[in-house]
């Protein structure tokens, strides 16, 4: 798999993401700079990592979404390329219009740093096929603005077209209000594009890829990607 992580000023989980990708591919991903205007040829996966691009000032991800390289990311997505946006990266994807909806301030108005459980709603994508449908896995969440919002028509369309990838749930897989700490509409934690090749999610599966650190609950996501692009 040929993967690249884009560096925006203020992002801070690029190293975590690089470690997770290296773990499944055996080599460090390329690091690209936000001012670049083109992506290297032949990329399988572009990752927009977590952090506080531009300090999360104005709106999370808003300024990063206007970076020169985002035109190239949009073109990559339009060509059917895969894009993964985690946390701040998810916010950038919605701000750039690559995914619908928006991430509002957490309902508690507090930064939430804790484990959460996510239920896999679709296991037939390049991001999730090493999971079972309905499987629940644990990941770190660490965000102030992860409260997924879209209008009802959009939410209905997302559900109708099966574009909800992940939902907050209890460890037993029940989708409850208590398990939905940030207040997201319909407990949505992750959303797919219609071609299933762009995924945005708030929690950080890249922090659960090492048995010596915090377990390997997140590893299947990266293994799915590696397997999907094994040829490359």
């Amino acid at each position: 798999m040929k993967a690249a992580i884009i560096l925006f000023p203020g992002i801070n989980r690029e190293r975590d993401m690089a470690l997770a990708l290296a773990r499944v591919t055996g080599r460090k991903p390329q690091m690209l700079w936000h001012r670049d205007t083109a992506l290297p040829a032949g990329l399988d996966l572009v990752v927009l990592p977590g952090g506080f691009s531009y300090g999360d000032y104005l709106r999370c991800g808003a300024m990063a979404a206007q970076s020169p390289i985002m035109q190239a990311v949009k073109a990559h997505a339009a060509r059917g390329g895969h894009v993964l946006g985690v946390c701040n990266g998810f916010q950038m994807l919605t701000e750039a219009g690559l995914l619908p909806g928006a991430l509002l301030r957490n309902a508690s108005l507090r930064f939430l740093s804790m484990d959460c459980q996510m239920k896999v709603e679709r296991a037939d994508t390049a991001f999730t096929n090493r999971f079972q449908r309905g499987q629940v896995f644990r990941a770190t969440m660490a965000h102030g603005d992860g409260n997924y919002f879209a209008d009802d028509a959009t939410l209905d369309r997302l559900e109708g077209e099966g574009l909800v990838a992940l939902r907050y749930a209890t460890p037993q897989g029940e989708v409850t209000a208590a398990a939905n700490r940030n207040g997201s509409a319909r407990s949505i934690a992750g959303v797919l594009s219609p071609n299933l090749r762009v995924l945005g999610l708030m929690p950080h599966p890249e922090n659960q890829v090492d048995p010596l650190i915090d377990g390997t609950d997140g590893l299947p996501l990266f293994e799915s990607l590696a397997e999907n692009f094994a040829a490359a």
Partner: protein
Amino acid sequence: MKALVTVMPKTGVLDPQGKAIGHALAGLGFAGVGEVRAGKVIELELAETDPAKARAAAEEMARKLLANTVIESFSVSLA
């Protein structure tokens, strides 16, 4: 000239901050406070001196960056 871009959550969009402020005001003993909405204001110092052009520029900035029209609406005033 100065342009003021005011950005508010669209009606129908959850405004947790406004809600929390409303609660807190009630908790402080302020009576007769109905709906509270919290938004942003961005004050821009513009070199442009023509009001129509300044307004158009500020609106363009709001559409491109300052507001996210999925969740927010904006208005521009000049000073």
